[in-house]
Protein backbone atom coordinates (compact mmCIF):
# COMPACT_ATOMS: atom_id res chain seq x y z
CA UNK A 1 0.00 0.00 0.00
CA UNK A 2 1.30 3.41 -0.81
CA UNK A 3 2.33 5.82 1.89
CA UNK A 4 -0.80 7.76 2.67
CA UNK A 5 0.90 11.09 3.23
CA UNK A 6 -0.51 13.30 5.92
CA UNK A 7 -2.92 11.76 8.35
CA UNK A 8 -5.09 13.56 10.82
CA UNK A 9 -3.43 12.02 13.82
CA UNK A 10 -0.83 9.44 14.55
CA UNK A 11 1.72 11.43 12.61
CA UNK A 12 4.41 12.87 14.80
CA UNK A 13 4.74 16.60 14.37
CA UNK A 14 8.19 17.65 13.24
CA UNK A 15 9.74 20.48 15.18
CA UNK A 16 9.43 22.97 12.35
CA UNK A 17 5.72 22.17 11.97
CA UNK A 18 5.31 23.89 15.33
CA UNK A 19 8.10 26.47 15.16
CA UNK A 20 7.26 28.06 11.80
CA UNK A 21 3.65 29.04 12.62
CA UNK A 22 4.67 30.10 16.16
CA UNK A 23 7.38 32.35 14.79
CA UNK A 24 4.97 33.87 12.27
CA UNK A 25 2.44 34.63 15.01
CA UNK A 26 5.16 36.15 17.22
CA UNK A 27 6.32 38.31 14.33
CA UNK A 28 2.81 39.63 13.68
CA UNK A 29 2.35 40.44 17.40
CA UNK A 30 5.67 42.27 17.59
CA UNK A 31 4.89 44.27 14.43
CA UNK A 32 1.47 45.15 15.85
CA UNK A 33 3.00 46.25 19.14
CA UNK A 34 5.54 48.43 17.32
CA UNK A 35 2.87 49.98 15.09
CA UNK A 36 1.05 51.14 18.23
CA UNK A 37 4.15 52.12 20.22
CA UNK A 38 5.47 54.33 17.41
CA UNK A 39 2.04 55.88 16.94
CA UNK A 40 1.68 54.79 13.28
CA UNK A 41 -1.92 54.01 14.22
CA UNK A 42 -3.28 56.13 17.08
CA UNK A 43 -3.69 54.12 20.28
CA UNK A 44 -7.31 55.14 20.84
CA UNK A 45 -8.18 53.30 17.58
CA UNK A 46 -5.96 50.25 18.02
CA UNK A 47 -4.91 48.80 21.38
CA UNK A 48 -1.53 47.07 21.54
CA UNK A 49 -1.28 43.31 22.21
CA UNK A 50 0.02 43.96 25.73
CA UNK A 51 -3.00 46.20 26.44
CA UNK A 52 -5.30 43.43 25.19
CA UNK A 53 -3.63 40.92 27.48
CA UNK A 54 -3.93 43.21 30.49
CA UNK A 55 -7.61 43.82 29.61
CA UNK A 56 -8.18 40.07 29.65
CA UNK A 57 -6.44 39.80 33.04
CA UNK A 58 -8.30 42.76 34.57
CA UNK A 59 -11.72 41.62 33.38
CA UNK A 60 -11.07 37.91 33.87
CA UNK A 61 -13.91 37.39 36.33
CA UNK A 62 -16.48 39.20 34.23
CA UNK A 63 -15.28 37.53 31.03
CA UNK A 64 -15.54 34.11 32.63
CA UNK A 65 -19.14 34.83 33.68
CA UNK A 66 -20.16 35.99 30.21
CA UNK A 67 -18.24 33.13 28.58
CA UNK A 68 -20.22 30.65 30.63
CA UNK A 69 -23.56 31.89 29.26
CA UNK A 70 -22.23 31.92 25.71
CA UNK A 71 -20.80 28.42 26.00
CA UNK A 72 -24.06 27.06 27.44
CA UNK A 73 -26.04 28.58 24.55
CA UNK A 74 -23.52 27.34 22.00
CA UNK A 75 -23.36 23.78 23.35
CA UNK A 76 -27.11 23.48 23.78
CA UNK A 77 -27.71 24.77 20.25
CA UNK A 78 -24.94 22.63 18.82
CA UNK A 79 -26.24 19.42 20.39
CA UNK A 80 -29.79 20.08 19.20
CA UNK A 81 -28.46 21.18 15.80
CA UNK A 82 -26.47 17.97 15.46
CA UNK A 83 -29.46 15.83 16.40
CA UNK A 84 -31.80 17.68 14.03
CA UNK A 85 -29.21 17.77 11.24
CA UNK A 86 -28.46 14.07 11.61
CA UNK A 87 -32.13 13.10 11.60
CA UNK A 88 -32.71 15.13 8.44
CA UNK A 89 -29.65 13.56 6.77
CA UNK A 90 -30.73 10.03 7.69
CA UNK A 91 -34.26 10.68 6.44
CA UNK A 92 -32.90 12.13 3.19
CA UNK A 93 -30.68 9.09 2.73
CA UNK A 94 -33.44 6.62 3.55
CA UNK A 95 -36.24 8.16 1.48
CA UNK A 96 -35.51 9.57 -1.94
CA UNK A 97 -38.66 11.71 -1.72
CA UNK A 98 -37.41 13.43 1.42
CA UNK A 99 -34.08 14.15 -0.27
CA UNK A 100 -35.81 15.62 -3.32
CA UNK A 101 -38.07 17.74 -1.16
CA UNK A 102 -35.49 19.00 1.32
CA UNK A 103 -32.27 19.41 -0.63
CA UNK A 104 -33.15 22.87 -2.08
CA UNK A 105 -34.74 24.02 1.18
CA UNK A 106 -31.68 23.07 3.20
CA UNK A 107 -29.46 24.97 0.77
CA UNK A 108 -31.67 28.05 0.74
CA UNK A 109 -31.90 28.05 4.53
CA UNK A 110 -28.14 28.48 4.60
CA UNK A 111 -28.16 31.54 2.35
CA UNK A 112 -30.29 33.45 4.87
CA UNK A 113 -27.91 35.76 6.74
CA UNK A 114 -28.01 34.92 10.45
CA UNK A 115 -27.42 38.54 11.32
CA UNK A 116 -30.66 39.45 9.56
CA UNK A 117 -32.88 36.95 11.31
CA UNK A 118 -31.37 37.45 14.75
CA UNK A 119 -33.52 40.54 15.51
CA UNK A 120 -36.61 38.60 14.43
CA UNK A 121 -35.71 35.77 16.77
CA UNK A 122 -35.37 38.27 19.62
CA UNK A 123 -38.75 39.72 18.67
CA UNK A 124 -40.38 36.28 18.67
CA UNK A 125 -38.60 34.59 21.56
CA UNK A 126 -37.59 37.46 23.86
CA UNK A 127 -34.27 38.23 25.51
CA UNK A 128 -33.70 34.91 27.22
CA UNK A 129 -31.90 31.72 26.26
CA UNK A 130 -34.32 30.58 23.54
CA UNK A 131 -33.51 32.98 20.66
CA UNK A 132 -29.78 32.34 21.10
CA UNK A 133 -30.18 28.58 21.06
CA UNK A 134 -32.49 28.78 18.05
CA UNK A 135 -29.94 30.84 16.12
CA UNK A 136 -27.18 28.36 16.96
CA UNK A 137 -29.39 25.47 15.82
CA UNK A 138 -30.11 27.25 12.54
CA UNK A 139 -26.44 27.89 11.86
CA UNK A 140 -25.12 24.47 12.92
CA UNK A 141 -27.57 21.97 11.50
CA UNK A 142 -26.73 22.67 7.86
CA UNK A 143 -23.07 21.56 7.86
CA UNK A 144 -24.12 18.42 9.72
CA UNK A 145 -26.93 17.59 7.32
CA UNK A 146 -24.82 18.17 4.24
CA UNK A 147 -21.77 16.26 5.46
CA UNK A 148 -23.65 13.31 6.93
CA UNK A 149 -25.91 13.00 3.88
CA UNK A 150 -22.87 13.09 1.59
CA UNK A 151 -21.12 10.52 3.79
CA UNK A 152 -24.11 8.19 3.82
CA UNK A 153 -24.52 8.37 0.05
CA UNK A 154 -20.80 7.89 -0.60
CA UNK A 155 -20.86 4.28 0.57
CA UNK A 156 -19.62 1.80 -2.06
CA UNK A 157 -22.69 0.17 -3.61
CA UNK A 158 -20.70 -3.07 -3.86
CA UNK A 159 -20.42 -3.06 -0.07
CA UNK A 160 -24.19 -2.82 0.22
CA UNK A 161 -24.57 -5.68 -2.29
CA UNK A 162 -22.05 -7.72 -0.31
CA UNK A 163 -24.01 -7.13 2.89
CA UNK A 164 -27.14 -8.27 1.06
CA UNK A 165 -25.47 -11.52 -0.01
CA UNK A 166 -24.75 -12.03 3.70
CA UNK A 167 -28.45 -11.65 4.38
CA UNK A 168 -28.12 -8.28 6.16
CA UNK A 169 -31.26 -6.30 6.89
CA UNK A 170 -31.63 -2.67 5.89
CA UNK A 171 -31.03 -1.72 9.51
CA UNK A 172 -27.84 -3.78 9.71
CA UNK A 173 -26.60 -2.29 6.44
CA UNK A 174 -27.21 1.18 7.83
CA UNK A 175 -25.45 0.68 11.15
CA UNK A 176 -22.62 -1.62 10.11
CA UNK A 177 -21.73 -0.28 6.67
CA UNK A 178 -23.18 3.16 6.00
CA UNK A 179 -22.82 4.87 9.37
CA UNK A 180 -19.12 3.99 9.94
CA UNK A 181 -18.31 5.02 6.36
CA UNK A 182 -20.06 8.36 6.89
CA UNK A 183 -18.34 9.16 10.20
CA UNK A 184 -15.35 10.85 8.62
CA UNK A 185 -17.47 13.36 6.74
CA UNK A 186 -19.81 13.73 9.69
CA UNK A 187 -16.92 14.89 11.86
CA UNK A 188 -15.70 17.37 9.22
CA UNK A 189 -19.17 18.87 9.29
CA UNK A 190 -19.24 18.82 13.07
CA UNK A 191 -15.93 20.69 13.21
CA UNK A 192 -17.40 23.47 11.04
CA UNK A 193 -20.59 23.52 13.09
CA UNK A 194 -18.59 23.85 16.30
CA UNK A 195 -17.03 27.10 15.05
CA UNK A 196 -20.41 28.41 13.93
CA UNK A 197 -21.89 27.63 17.34
CA UNK A 198 -19.89 30.15 19.38
CA UNK A 199 -20.13 32.86 16.73
CA UNK A 200 -23.87 32.22 16.31
CA UNK A 201 -24.45 32.60 20.04
CA UNK A 202 -22.44 35.86 20.13
CA UNK A 203 -24.39 37.33 17.21
CA UNK A 204 -27.68 36.51 18.93
CA UNK A 205 -26.44 38.16 22.12
CA UNK A 206 -25.53 41.36 20.29
CA UNK A 207 -29.15 42.00 19.57
CA UNK A 208 -30.41 41.70 23.06
CA UNK A 209 -29.80 39.76 26.22
CA UNK A 210 -28.60 39.95 29.79
CA UNK A 211 -25.40 37.93 29.68
CA UNK A 212 -22.91 36.50 27.25
CA UNK A 213 -19.83 37.61 25.34
CA UNK A 214 -22.03 39.37 22.75
CA UNK A 215 -23.66 41.45 25.48
CA UNK A 216 -20.26 42.29 26.98
CA UNK A 217 -19.03 43.21 23.51
CA UNK A 218 -21.84 45.71 22.85
CA UNK A 219 -21.27 47.26 26.28
CA UNK A 220 -17.52 47.79 25.83
CA UNK A 221 -18.06 49.07 22.28
CA UNK A 222 -20.41 51.72 23.59
CA UNK A 223 -17.76 52.79 26.12
CA UNK A 224 -15.05 52.82 23.40
CA UNK A 225 -12.79 50.42 25.32
CA UNK A 226 -11.28 48.77 22.30
CA UNK A 227 -8.73 46.82 24.34
CA UNK A 228 -11.68 44.96 25.86
CA UNK A 229 -13.23 44.52 22.39
CA UNK A 230 -10.07 42.77 21.31
CA UNK A 231 -10.06 40.77 24.52
CA UNK A 232 -13.50 39.35 23.65
CA UNK A 233 -12.42 38.61 20.08
CA UNK A 234 -9.45 36.65 21.40
CA UNK A 235 -11.69 34.84 23.84
CA UNK A 236 -14.20 33.91 21.11
CA UNK A 237 -11.37 32.47 19.03
CA UNK A 238 -10.06 30.51 21.97
CA UNK A 239 -13.50 29.13 22.79
CA UNK A 240 -14.09 28.12 19.17
CA UNK A 241 -10.70 26.42 19.03
CA UNK A 242 -11.42 24.62 22.27
CA UNK A 243 -14.73 23.39 20.90
CA UNK A 244 -13.00 22.18 17.72
CA UNK A 245 -10.44 20.45 19.89
CA UNK A 246 -13.26 18.74 21.75
CA UNK A 247 -14.69 17.54 18.43
CA UNK A 248 -11.27 16.18 17.43
CA UNK A 249 -11.02 14.38 20.74
CA UNK A 250 -14.45 12.80 20.31
CA UNK A 251 -13.51 11.70 16.80
CA UNK A 252 -10.24 10.29 18.08
CA UNK A 253 -12.15 8.18 20.60
CA UNK A 254 -15.01 7.26 18.26
CA UNK A 255 -12.80 6.14 15.36
CA UNK A 256 -9.89 4.12 16.78
CA UNK A 257 -9.19 2.58 13.35
CA UNK A 258 -8.24 6.01 11.99
CA UNK A 259 -5.17 6.00 14.19
CA UNK A 260 -4.05 2.71 12.64
CA UNK A 261 -4.56 4.15 9.16
CA UNK A 262 -2.22 6.98 9.97
CA UNK A 263 0.59 4.57 10.73
CA UNK A 264 0.13 2.08 7.93
CA UNK A 265 2.54 1.94 5.06
CA UNK A 266 2.71 -1.53 3.64
CA UNK A 267 4.45 -2.43 0.43
Amino acid at each position, binding site marked *: *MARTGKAEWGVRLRRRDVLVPLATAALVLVAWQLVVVFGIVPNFLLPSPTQVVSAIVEDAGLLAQHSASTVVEALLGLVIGVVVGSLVAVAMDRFEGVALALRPLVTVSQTIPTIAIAPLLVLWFGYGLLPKVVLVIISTFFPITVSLYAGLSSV*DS*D*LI*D*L*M*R*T*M*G*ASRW*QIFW*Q*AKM*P*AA*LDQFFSGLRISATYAIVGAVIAEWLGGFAGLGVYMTRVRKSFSYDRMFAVIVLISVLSLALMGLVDLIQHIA*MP*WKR*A*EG*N*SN*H*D
Partner: protein
Amino acid sequence: MAGVDAAGVGAGGAGGVVLEARGLALSWDEGASTCVRVDALEVREGELVCLVGRSGCGKTTLLHALAGLTRPLSGQVLLRGRDVTGLAGQVSYMFQKDLLLPNKRVVDNVCLPLTLAGVPKAEARERAQALLGRFGLAGCEGKWPSELSGGMRQRAAFLRTYLMGNDVVLLDEPFSALDALTRADLRDWYLGAARELGLSTLMITHDVDEAVSMASRIYVLSAGEGPGEPARISDEVEVGRAAGADAGDFGLTPEFLTAKREVLSALGVG
Protein backbone atom coordinates in the same frame (compact mmCIF):
# COMPACT_ATOMS: atom_id res chain seq x y z
CA MET B 1 -18.27 -33.19 1.33
CA ALA B 2 -18.58 -35.52 -1.65
CA GLY B 3 -17.09 -35.14 -5.09
CA VAL B 4 -13.79 -33.69 -4.03
CA ASP B 5 -12.07 -35.05 -7.11
CA ALA B 6 -14.64 -33.86 -9.60
CA ALA B 7 -12.10 -31.55 -11.20
CA GLY B 8 -11.35 -32.46 -14.78
CA VAL B 9 -14.29 -34.77 -15.40
CA GLY B 10 -16.91 -34.14 -18.06
CA ALA B 11 -20.69 -34.22 -17.77
CA GLY B 12 -21.90 -37.34 -16.04
CA GLY B 13 -18.73 -37.55 -13.92
CA ALA B 14 -18.44 -37.90 -10.21
CA GLY B 15 -19.96 -34.58 -9.13
CA GLY B 16 -23.62 -33.71 -9.33
CA VAL B 17 -24.74 -30.26 -10.43
CA VAL B 18 -24.87 -27.80 -7.52
CA LEU B 19 -25.56 -24.50 -9.26
CA GLU B 20 -27.45 -24.17 -12.48
CA ALA B 21 -28.79 -21.36 -14.64
CA ARG B 22 -31.53 -22.04 -17.16
CA GLY B 23 -32.72 -19.69 -19.89
CA LEU B 24 -31.54 -16.55 -18.10
CA ALA B 25 -32.21 -13.19 -19.72
CA LEU B 26 -30.59 -10.27 -17.92
CA SER B 27 -30.60 -6.51 -18.34
CA TRP B 28 -28.24 -3.86 -16.99
CA ASP B 29 -31.02 -1.97 -15.41
CA GLU B 30 -34.68 -2.31 -14.62
CA GLY B 31 -36.72 -1.80 -17.76
CA ALA B 32 -33.74 -2.07 -20.10
CA SER B 33 -33.61 -4.66 -22.85
CA THR B 34 -31.82 -8.00 -22.55
CA CYS B 35 -28.06 -7.66 -22.53
CA VAL B 36 -26.99 -11.13 -21.44
CA ARG B 37 -28.67 -14.40 -22.37
CA VAL B 38 -27.51 -17.67 -20.85
CA ASP B 39 -29.35 -20.79 -21.91
CA ALA B 40 -27.47 -23.24 -19.74
CA LEU B 41 -24.67 -22.92 -17.23
CA GLU B 42 -23.78 -25.33 -14.50
CA VAL B 43 -21.29 -25.80 -11.72
CA ARG B 44 -20.75 -29.34 -10.43
CA GLU B 45 -19.84 -30.47 -6.97
CA GLY B 46 -16.24 -29.64 -6.07
CA GLU B 47 -15.21 -28.14 -9.39
CA LEU B 48 -13.88 -24.72 -10.22
CA VAL B 49 -15.43 -23.21 -13.32
CA CYS B 50 -14.29 -19.97 -14.90
CA LEU B 51 -16.30 -17.54 -16.92
CA VAL B 52 -14.10 -15.46 -19.18
CA GLY B 53 -15.02 -12.61 -21.46
CA ARG B 54 -13.90 -9.20 -22.51
CA SER B 55 -14.47 -6.29 -20.12
CA GLY B 56 -17.95 -4.95 -20.23
CA CYS B 57 -19.56 -8.00 -21.82
CA GLY B 58 -21.76 -8.67 -18.80
CA LYS B 59 -19.79 -11.11 -16.64
CA THR B 60 -20.57 -9.26 -13.42
CA THR B 61 -24.21 -8.79 -14.43
CA LEU B 62 -24.45 -12.56 -14.79
CA LEU B 63 -22.72 -13.18 -11.46
CA HIS B 64 -25.05 -10.72 -9.71
CA ALA B 65 -28.04 -12.62 -11.05
CA LEU B 66 -26.57 -15.95 -9.92
CA ALA B 67 -26.01 -14.44 -6.47
CA GLY B 68 -29.63 -13.33 -6.37
CA LEU B 69 -28.73 -9.65 -6.16
CA THR B 70 -30.76 -8.91 -9.27
CA ARG B 71 -33.84 -10.58 -10.68
CA PRO B 72 -33.53 -11.87 -14.26
CA LEU B 73 -36.09 -10.80 -16.89
CA SER B 74 -36.74 -14.49 -17.34
CA GLY B 75 -35.20 -17.82 -16.51
CA GLN B 76 -34.18 -19.60 -13.33
CA VAL B 77 -31.26 -20.04 -11.01
CA LEU B 78 -31.23 -23.42 -9.25
CA LEU B 79 -29.15 -24.32 -6.21
CA ARG B 80 -29.09 -28.11 -5.82
CA GLY B 81 -32.37 -28.17 -7.73
CA ARG B 82 -34.01 -25.53 -5.52
CA ASP B 83 -35.23 -22.35 -7.23
CA VAL B 84 -33.26 -19.43 -5.76
CA THR B 85 -33.92 -16.91 -8.53
CA GLY B 86 -33.63 -13.39 -7.11
CA LEU B 87 -32.86 -14.63 -3.59
CA ALA B 88 -29.73 -13.10 -2.06
CA GLY B 89 -27.75 -14.93 0.62
CA GLN B 90 -28.01 -18.43 -0.86
CA VAL B 91 -24.49 -18.67 -2.27
CA SER B 92 -21.26 -17.05 -1.10
CA TYR B 93 -20.14 -14.12 -3.17
CA MET B 94 -16.78 -12.42 -3.23
CA PHE B 95 -16.26 -9.12 -4.99
CA GLN B 96 -13.23 -7.86 -6.85
CA LYS B 97 -12.52 -5.40 -4.04
CA ASP B 98 -11.96 -6.88 -0.61
CA LEU B 99 -14.63 -4.55 0.88
CA LEU B 100 -13.36 -5.06 4.41
CA LEU B 101 -15.00 -2.67 6.85
CA PRO B 102 -12.29 -0.22 7.96
CA ASN B 103 -13.89 0.17 11.39
CA LYS B 104 -13.79 -3.51 12.38
CA ARG B 105 -10.75 -5.50 13.38
CA VAL B 106 -9.84 -8.42 11.12
CA VAL B 107 -11.51 -11.04 13.29
CA ASP B 108 -14.77 -9.06 13.41
CA ASN B 109 -14.59 -8.45 9.67
CA VAL B 110 -14.27 -12.10 8.81
CA CYS B 111 -17.05 -13.21 11.14
CA LEU B 112 -19.42 -10.52 9.88
CA PRO B 113 -21.62 -13.06 8.03
CA LEU B 114 -22.04 -14.93 11.34
CA THR B 115 -22.84 -11.90 13.49
CA LEU B 116 -25.25 -10.58 10.84
CA ALA B 117 -27.04 -13.91 11.08
CA GLY B 118 -27.37 -13.46 14.83
CA VAL B 119 -24.57 -15.74 16.05
CA PRO B 120 -23.32 -14.34 19.39
CA LYS B 121 -20.11 -12.38 19.00
CA ALA B 122 -17.96 -14.62 21.22
CA GLU B 123 -19.01 -17.77 19.39
CA ALA B 124 -18.54 -16.12 15.97
CA ARG B 125 -15.05 -14.99 16.91
CA GLU B 126 -14.18 -18.46 18.13
CA ARG B 127 -15.23 -20.03 14.85
CA ALA B 128 -13.27 -17.43 12.86
CA GLN B 129 -10.26 -17.82 15.11
CA ALA B 130 -10.11 -21.54 14.41
CA LEU B 131 -9.84 -20.87 10.66
CA LEU B 132 -7.37 -17.98 10.66
CA GLY B 133 -4.40 -20.31 10.27
CA ARG B 134 -5.87 -22.18 7.30
CA PHE B 135 -6.40 -18.84 5.56
CA GLY B 136 -2.89 -17.62 6.29
CA LEU B 137 -4.08 -15.00 8.76
CA ALA B 138 -2.70 -16.35 12.02
CA GLY B 139 -1.88 -13.50 14.38
CA CYS B 140 -3.80 -10.91 12.36
CA GLU B 141 -7.09 -11.13 14.26
CA GLY B 142 -6.54 -7.97 16.29
CA LYS B 143 -5.31 -5.81 13.42
CA TRP B 144 -7.27 -3.20 11.54
CA PRO B 145 -7.74 -3.93 7.81
CA SER B 146 -5.62 -0.89 6.96
CA GLU B 147 -2.67 -2.60 8.63
CA LEU B 148 -2.79 -5.57 6.22
CA SER B 149 -1.13 -5.91 2.83
CA GLY B 150 -3.27 -6.36 -0.29
CA GLY B 151 -2.75 -10.13 -0.31
CA MET B 152 -3.64 -10.47 3.36
CA ARG B 153 -6.75 -8.33 2.91
CA GLN B 154 -7.83 -10.64 0.10
CA ARG B 155 -7.25 -13.68 2.32
CA ALA B 156 -9.44 -12.07 4.97
CA ALA B 157 -12.09 -11.48 2.30
CA PHE B 158 -11.82 -15.18 1.35
CA LEU B 159 -12.30 -16.25 4.95
CA ARG B 160 -15.29 -13.95 5.31
CA THR B 161 -16.72 -15.45 2.10
CA TYR B 162 -16.13 -18.94 3.48
CA LEU B 163 -17.86 -18.08 6.75
CA MET B 164 -20.97 -17.18 4.79
CA GLY B 165 -21.39 -20.92 5.16
CA ASN B 166 -22.31 -21.89 1.59
CA ASP B 167 -20.12 -24.37 -0.23
CA VAL B 168 -21.03 -22.78 -3.56
CA VAL B 169 -18.83 -19.76 -4.08
CA LEU B 170 -19.00 -17.03 -6.72
CA LEU B 171 -15.78 -15.07 -7.22
CA ASP B 172 -15.57 -11.82 -9.17
CA GLU B 173 -11.94 -11.38 -10.29
CA PRO B 174 -10.64 -11.96 -6.77
CA PHE B 175 -6.97 -11.76 -7.75
CA SER B 176 -6.97 -8.84 -10.17
CA ALA B 177 -5.99 -6.17 -7.65
CA LEU B 178 -2.89 -8.05 -6.47
CA ASP B 179 0.70 -8.00 -7.67
CA ALA B 180 1.81 -10.92 -9.87
CA LEU B 181 3.65 -12.94 -7.21
CA THR B 182 0.95 -12.58 -4.55
CA ARG B 183 -1.59 -13.49 -7.22
CA ALA B 184 0.26 -16.70 -8.13
CA ASP B 185 0.53 -17.68 -4.44
CA LEU B 186 -3.10 -17.02 -3.76
CA ARG B 187 -4.29 -18.99 -6.82
CA ASP B 188 -2.53 -22.11 -5.59
CA TRP B 189 -3.63 -21.46 -2.06
CA TYR B 190 -7.26 -21.12 -3.16
CA LEU B 191 -7.19 -24.36 -5.18
CA GLY B 192 -5.87 -26.18 -2.12
CA ALA B 193 -8.31 -24.58 0.28
CA ALA B 194 -11.29 -25.15 -2.03
CA ARG B 195 -10.38 -28.83 -2.39
CA GLU B 196 -9.93 -29.26 1.33
CA LEU B 197 -13.09 -27.38 2.29
CA GLY B 198 -15.17 -28.96 -0.48
CA LEU B 199 -16.10 -25.75 -2.27
CA SER B 200 -17.64 -25.53 -5.72
CA THR B 201 -16.58 -22.32 -7.40
CA LEU B 202 -17.64 -20.16 -10.31
CA MET B 203 -15.03 -17.49 -10.90
CA ILE B 204 -15.12 -14.70 -13.44
CA THR B 205 -11.93 -13.25 -14.84
CA HIS B 206 -10.68 -11.57 -17.96
CA ASP B 207 -7.26 -13.14 -17.49
CA VAL B 208 -7.16 -16.18 -19.79
CA ASP B 209 -3.98 -17.58 -18.16
CA GLU B 210 -5.61 -17.39 -14.77
CA ALA B 211 -8.75 -19.12 -16.00
CA VAL B 212 -6.88 -21.94 -17.75
CA SER B 213 -4.46 -22.50 -14.88
CA MET B 214 -7.20 -22.80 -12.27
CA ALA B 215 -10.39 -24.11 -13.87
CA SER B 216 -11.48 -27.54 -14.94
CA ARG B 217 -13.98 -25.96 -17.32
CA ILE B 218 -14.23 -22.55 -18.88
CA TYR B 219 -17.27 -20.75 -20.22
CA VAL B 220 -16.57 -18.03 -22.75
CA LEU B 221 -19.02 -15.13 -22.67
CA SER B 222 -19.03 -13.22 -25.96
CA ALA B 223 -20.70 -9.99 -26.94
CA GLY B 224 -23.70 -10.25 -29.29
CA GLU B 225 -23.11 -10.38 -33.04
CA GLY B 226 -24.86 -7.14 -33.92
CA PRO B 227 -25.87 -4.04 -32.00
CA GLY B 228 -28.64 -4.73 -29.53
CA GLU B 229 -27.87 -8.45 -29.52
CA PRO B 230 -27.32 -9.82 -26.02
CA ALA B 231 -24.03 -11.41 -24.96
CA ARG B 232 -24.07 -15.20 -24.89
CA ILE B 233 -21.95 -18.08 -23.76
CA SER B 234 -20.33 -18.89 -27.09
CA ASP B 235 -18.02 -21.71 -26.05
CA GLU B 236 -17.34 -24.19 -23.29
CA VAL B 237 -13.75 -25.41 -23.00
CA GLU B 238 -12.75 -28.51 -21.03
CA VAL B 239 -9.34 -28.13 -19.50
CA GLY B 240 -7.43 -31.41 -19.35
CA ARG B 241 -5.97 -30.91 -15.90
CA ALA B 242 -5.18 -33.69 -13.48
CA ALA B 243 -7.14 -33.55 -10.27
CA GLY B 244 -5.18 -31.76 -7.60
CA ALA B 245 -2.66 -30.14 -9.95
CA ASP B 246 -1.65 -26.74 -8.70
CA ALA B 247 -2.01 -23.67 -10.86
CA GLY B 248 1.68 -22.87 -11.20
CA ASP B 249 2.71 -26.38 -12.31
CA PHE B 250 -0.23 -26.86 -14.64
CA GLY B 251 0.69 -23.58 -16.35
CA LEU B 252 3.84 -25.29 -17.69
CA THR B 253 2.14 -28.27 -19.37
CA PRO B 254 1.13 -28.77 -23.03
CA GLU B 255 -2.49 -29.31 -21.88
CA PHE B 256 -2.43 -25.78 -20.51
CA LEU B 257 -1.39 -24.40 -23.91
CA THR B 258 -3.99 -26.43 -25.78
CA ALA B 259 -6.76 -25.13 -23.58
CA LYS B 260 -5.40 -21.60 -23.65
CA ARG B 261 -5.33 -21.62 -27.46
CA GLU B 262 -8.91 -22.83 -27.51
CA VAL B 263 -10.11 -20.10 -25.16
CA LEU B 264 -8.22 -17.37 -27.01
CA SER B 265 -9.68 -18.38 -30.34
CA ALA B 266 -13.14 -18.46 -28.76
CA LEU B 267 -12.54 -14.88 -27.62
CA GLY B 268 -11.43 -14.00 -31.15
CA VAL B 269 -7.83 -13.32 -30.15
CA GLY B 270 -4.98 -14.79 -32.24
